């Protein structure tokens, strides 16, 4: 019988090295990055346009354009596009994220050529038929109405609105009435400005051989790719006024704290992210231990740093027992205060260091995840050594640094508090 009271010896975790993808250009000059992983029989291609939701003149335009992109071109009807894609066993996801408009193509490599013919057509010639718009509207409105009955959704919306202000596209909330009023012309205008014949970048991974590279070059390389107009964003305006909504019918309340933080290019960014991890970045974090494991107030509480291209913020939320919501938010404040007043012990520091490094290393286990990391670096204009530096900085971080970071950037008194439910 082995001695079970002693843990097996710990071995230093190898340093992570980002695999740099093949960097190529399509014949139209578009940047093309890819990682090949033979034998999978499938591949994924992300086609990324600059803009996303922040290029919207009205809330909802990016999402509607994305949702309707497969609903018809001059040549193919909605029915033809969808039944063709489905008949190849392929699927696509179109999303307007905060900063980008992204078409992700998932396909058996055997069918890639057929799929790309359609994709090219959708990018260059979508017509957004009025009839499809009507249907899409009603389904989006009903989804939004369902979401508006979830405390967590309403709380998160309010957090974004507080951080950026309701004039800023990152902070603007969508209401059913506004979606109802969206016009086909407005969608076409957005499509022309961001997608149609506009500059894009391609990130591909999976079972990519010469044939597949050639197909991508033929179909996506023959699109015109003109730069889109520069987007001028309104100044964001942080409003830390406490926000609460009481819902009679809710059995839980969503509570949260949030505030703006420096972005990825700031020299303290890795320390900031590490400090956030200590607070609520993993299952054994302080928030989890206190609110879930010790008090049982919630099923789970995490804290996050979200980095958008034009703004970054910290937030932590949880769905908690309604009667305990005041205690819960007090505990969250207490945990943040603690980070600002007491040094983190050696044991905890080692745990979080190894955990963050290890979990990062183990999360990268296919060409799909490798290329996602590269896409992130590319979007934010970070050096290719970004993740390696992050790991080096984490290894060398001390409890003094954390104390300093928490004092400088995590002040509960200047955060916005939300409580819904």
């Amino acid at each position, binding site marked *: 019988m082995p001695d*079970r*009271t002693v843990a097996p010896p710990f071995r230093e975790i190898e340093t992570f090295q980002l695999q740099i993808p093949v960097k190529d250009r399509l014949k139209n000059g578009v940047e093309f990055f890819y990682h090949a992983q033979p034998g999978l029989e499938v591949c994924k291609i992300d086609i990324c346009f600059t803009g996303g939701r922040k290029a919207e003149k009205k809330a909802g335009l990016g999402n509607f354009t994305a949702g309707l992109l497969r609903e018809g071109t001059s040549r193919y009807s909605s029915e033809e596009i*969808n039944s063709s894609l489905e008949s190849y066993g392929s699927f696509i996801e179109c999303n307007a994220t905060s900063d980008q408009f992204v078409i992700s193509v998932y396909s058996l490599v055997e069918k890639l050529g057929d799929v790309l013919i359609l994709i090219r057509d959708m990018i260059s010639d979508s017509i957004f038929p009025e009839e499809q718009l009507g249907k899409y509207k009603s389904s989006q409105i009903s989804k939004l109405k369902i979401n508006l009955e979830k405390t967590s959704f309403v709380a998160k919306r309010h957090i974004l609105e507080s951080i950026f202000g309701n004039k800023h596209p990152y902070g603007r909330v969508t209401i059913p009435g506004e979606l109802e009023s969206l016009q086909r012309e407005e969608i076409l205008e957005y499509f022309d400005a961001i997608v149609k014949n506009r500059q894009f970048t391609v990130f591909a991974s999976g079972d990519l051989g010469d044939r597949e590279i050639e197909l991508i070059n033929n179909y996506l390389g023959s699109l015109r790719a003109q730069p889109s107009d520069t987007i001028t964003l309104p100044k964001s305006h942080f409003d830390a006024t406490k926000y609460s909504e009481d819902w009679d019918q809710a059995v839980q309340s969503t509570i949260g704290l949030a505030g703006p933080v420096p972005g990825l290019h700031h020299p303290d960014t890795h320390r900031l992210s590490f400090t956030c991890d200590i607070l609520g970045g993993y299952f054994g974090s302080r928030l989890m231990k206190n609110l879930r494991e010790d008090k049982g107030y919630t099923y789970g509480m995490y804290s996050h740093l979200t980095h958008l291209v034009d703004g970054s913020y910290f937030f932590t939320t949880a769905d908690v027992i309604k009667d305990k919501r005041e205690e819960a938010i007090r505990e969250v404040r207490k945990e943040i205060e603690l980070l600002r007043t007491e040094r983190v012990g050696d044991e905890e520091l080692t745990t979080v260091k190894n955990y963050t490094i290890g979990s990062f290393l183990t999360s990268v286990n296919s060409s799909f995840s490798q290329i996602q990391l590269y896409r992130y670096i590319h979007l934010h204009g970070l050096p290719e050594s970004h993740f390696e530096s992050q790991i080096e900085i984490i290894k060398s971080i001390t409890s003094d640094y954390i104390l300093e970071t928490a004092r400088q950037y995590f002040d509960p008194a200047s955060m916005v508090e939300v409580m819904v439910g």
Partner: protein
Amino acid sequence: MIEYDSYRLNNGLQVYVIPDRSIRSVVMNLAYNVGARDEEPGMTGFAHLFEHLMFGGSVNIPEFDTPLQKVGGENNAYTTSDYTNYYMTLPASNLETGFWLESDRMLSLSFSPGVLETQKKVVIEEFKQRYINRPYGDIWHKLRPVAYSTHPYRWPVIGSEISHVENADMENVRSFFFTHYNPDNAVLVVAGDVDPDNIFEMSDKWFGPIDRQTDYKRNLPEEPAQTKKREVIVEADVPQNALYKVYHIPGRGQNGYRAVDLLSDLLGRGKSSRLHDKLVQKKQVFTTVGANVTGTLDPGLLVIQGFLKDGIDFGDAERLVDGVIAEVRDEIVTEPEYNKIINQAVSSLAFSRVELLSRATAIAYGHLLGNPDYANKELDLIRSVSRESVCEAAGKYLIPENSTTLQYHRKKS
């Protein structure tokens, strides 16, 4: 094709290894052959509550998560009606820590009363967060007990009511542990940057000394064939009327399952599927509609679910769904449509093999089905379903007397 090596310990623990040297990390997937179907009707939700307790410390190790995090690993678990799965990923160099932790909690838990009390609260909050505090969250609480009269699938994994979780005591915990958490009732899959012989050796070292405690023979009541259509009507404060129709179908691994699975794709997967095309696009009675199978080991359900457009009558919507089903039953599926559902299934399978963890889980799941190589046979199983058998499945299973309908009405304000 998933290549694996296999080894069985003397105490009955089954081990599989999937070497993949292209990856720097390791996945350790340990599945116990116990799920919500093994619960007593008065103590539903227990298998899932128990899963939470598995993280509350074992006989020699006071806490599960911290030592794992210390070596750069992370983990999670989930409970289904059929089995309970624990999985972790960690850097290959620290794999032995995973063996140490997993084997100690298989040996025995700490059975600490404090842990039980806290996890009961946590699970109750999970119950509220997922099943009460959101619109339509209670669908399966309403539907399961009507669709199933006898089989334990008649309650959801979270439990049929909160009081069952509240009433759980330490005696229940001990007896559940010693009945189900035995080496011969588990399957371990290790995948990634590893050497099979080394894994077998480590398995013997850490899991070998654990003895089997009791003999549990699963003996679940079989669900009798349904003979009459069943209906449930619910009214609640939800934004939109919703219609659910479920039909009894074979269990995964049983004859006929693959054909029904493809039938559900034909009916309700994607925009070109029959239901979406006819009832969302053309007739416009639903805003969304889809179909899927529950895919359980014992006989499961084919589920059709849709949100009704405002002003549409439930009876009309249901008749139109029945009409779509009748067409599948009475007319042969066309060649292009057949090719479509095969391509969709083949593609989904290929995508599900990209990540290391899902390959490991596929082998574990095959083992629970009685054949680890099931994962490698799935492609042939899909391709061996004929056009005729998809239509036959509609005629055999999608009939009114085999169905339960749930009308979820929006409360009029």
